């Protein structure tokens, strides 16, 4: 962040001092994006929070009335919301934890920088680019107990219930988590691999010269250096998992019963299928608050860590 050299212009056209002109220019460059995001993202977000205090249904808009915190009270006594909240957290932490573990294993396998590994990494990234909707369809079909390539044999050999992995209350959420793991582990591997490649080689060599065993080296040297550089990626992945929609909507639609309902699925159902805008907005606002809390925790954890590492 060095200061720009300041050309002193003497032409009357540029009566404004350079510094001010430069600042104005940069402000004009960033303004359109800020205005756009405020209008198209923040404004609706605020509008949604306002809606959450109203009894507002698109089916009978004439009878809209201010109800204070009633939607929030209804929300906390709604058993589906409670299930959805638990499911959302199980899904978020379960999926991201597994993705981290598998991703780390995969990154370590691909650490050596050669042609074979680079090609495999590109191919591995294919699931990341596949429409999440199609990902849902793939597993819906594969896991079908009637004709699916996996589901049929799983049901036949008694590994899954007769309704298949996605059709049984006991296994549906875990199956959804595994689908998410299939989709996002490669991304996690890529991020961790980038982290591994940026590790200072001299420290790794020093550890080896000092006679640290591979497992020790990994635990004491690699992991502590790797975590800070990949922490933001982990948090972002977690926030993405928190609002997952497509794969659940397609593969179970929240069912069976409410076994795979998440806050996201439930609020979309309430708002855009049953048109209970007030209630759906209350759920969405709770989600926004929870994401905010995650962000604050992230800032509190990251700032001290960054300060420590300089």
């Amino acid at each position, binding site marked *: 962040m060095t200061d720009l050299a300041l050309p002193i212009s003497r032409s009357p056209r540029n009566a404004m001092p350079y510094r001010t002109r430069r600042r104005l220019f940069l402000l004009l460059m960033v303004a359109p994006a800020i205005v756009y995001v405020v209008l198209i993202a923040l404004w609706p977000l605020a509008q949604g929070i306002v809606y959450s205090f109203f009894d507002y249904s698109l089916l009978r808009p004439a009878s809209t009335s201010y109800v204070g915190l009633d939607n929030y009270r209804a929300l906390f006594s709604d058993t589906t919301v409670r299930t959805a909240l638990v499911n959302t957290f199980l899904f978020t932490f379960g999926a991201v934890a597994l993705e981290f573990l598998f991703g780390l294993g995969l990154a370590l396998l691909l650490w050596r920088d050669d042609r074979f590994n680079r090609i495999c990494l590109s191919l591995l990234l294919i699931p990341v680019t596949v429409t999440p909707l199609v990902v849902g369809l793939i597993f819906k079909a594969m896991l079908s107990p009637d004709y699916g390539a996996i589901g049929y*044999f799983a049901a036949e050999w008694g590994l899954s219930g007769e309704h298949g992995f996605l059709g049984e209350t006991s296994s549906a959420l875990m199956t959804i988590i595994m689908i998410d793991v299939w989709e996002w582990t490669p991304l996690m591997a890529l991020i961790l691999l980038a982290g591994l490649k940026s590790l200072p080689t001299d420290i790794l060599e020093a550890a080896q010269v000092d006679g640290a065993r591979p497992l020790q080296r990994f635990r004491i040297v690699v992991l502590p250096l790797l975590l800070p550089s990949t922490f933001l990626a982990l948090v972002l992945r977690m926030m993405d998992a928190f609002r997952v929609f497509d794969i659940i909507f397609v593969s179970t639609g929240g069912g069976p019963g409410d076994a795979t309902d998440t806050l996201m699925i439930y609020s979309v159902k309430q708002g855009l299928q049953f048109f209970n805008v007030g209630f759906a907005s209350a759920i969405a606002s709770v989600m926004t608050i929870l994401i905010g809390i995650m962000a604050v925790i992230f800032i509190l954890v990251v700032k001290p860590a960054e300060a420590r590492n300089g």
Partner: protein
Amino acid sequence: MARAIVRGGGVPSGSAGKQGMRRAEARSILYRRVAVIVILAVFLLPLLWLLSTAYKPTRDIFATPPTLLFSPTWSNFTSVFRYFDLPELLWSSIVISLGSTVLSLLLGVPAGYALARAKFRGAVGVAYFFLAIRTVPPVATLIPFYILMRDIGLLGTWWAVILINTSLNCAFVVWMMYAYFRSSPISIEEAALTDGCNDWRTFLTVALPAVVPGIIASAIFCVMFSWNDFLFAMFLTRAETKPISVALLSAYGTKDISWGTLGALAHFSTLPIILMMLFLNRYFVQGLTKGVN
């Protein structure tokens, strides 16, 4: 596993018989490659399986027990053309993703530049603000946005989907370009400015060419996000403006439409993005690692 691992980091191993070391090294590389191939199969076979249903006649898809053998057919592709107006669906997807990409780049690239070059302390905070926008649950903005679009008469048009996709995509582009501009050297820009080149021309002719990989990566992600989106498109488009993702979902619920037809339709939904990613792999990988660090 950890044993193979840490040796993979290119750390030279000392001591012991060199010949034996080299053989052990070669063997451990071989083991790792076999493991990678197995993992690759786990990640690619499900997709290939869905795509392969497109070439199977219906009775082979529903064969019990499922079988690997089938008599290949093109009939699923002909039924895609019978049931769907495929060119129109693809055109919708293209308009939505390119529209949003162009708009996001026009808004996001200059903003990323300004934030990276500003000497104002709050610039980092503004960059994080854009990052935060991307983490807002889409349903929180979608419902009010839906009502807003209905009220101003844009509901059901491409504009509605492009506008809301752009709010997320442009926030992403700002964040990504902020990272790219920050790591691109400032000295040439300073030289241009001192030589009397004005701010705007310096941006266009000096700063931009240096971050072309970042712009390509940003574009790839914008295209991918909006092409793959179906939550927004499902509620904001109507029959004539719906993209291929929405068509896939509605087809899935229909009785007449078999898995084979779905598999055939899925080709058009997934292959463009997969091919784009494979062709522009370098930029994609670089962008993924830069955009999140």
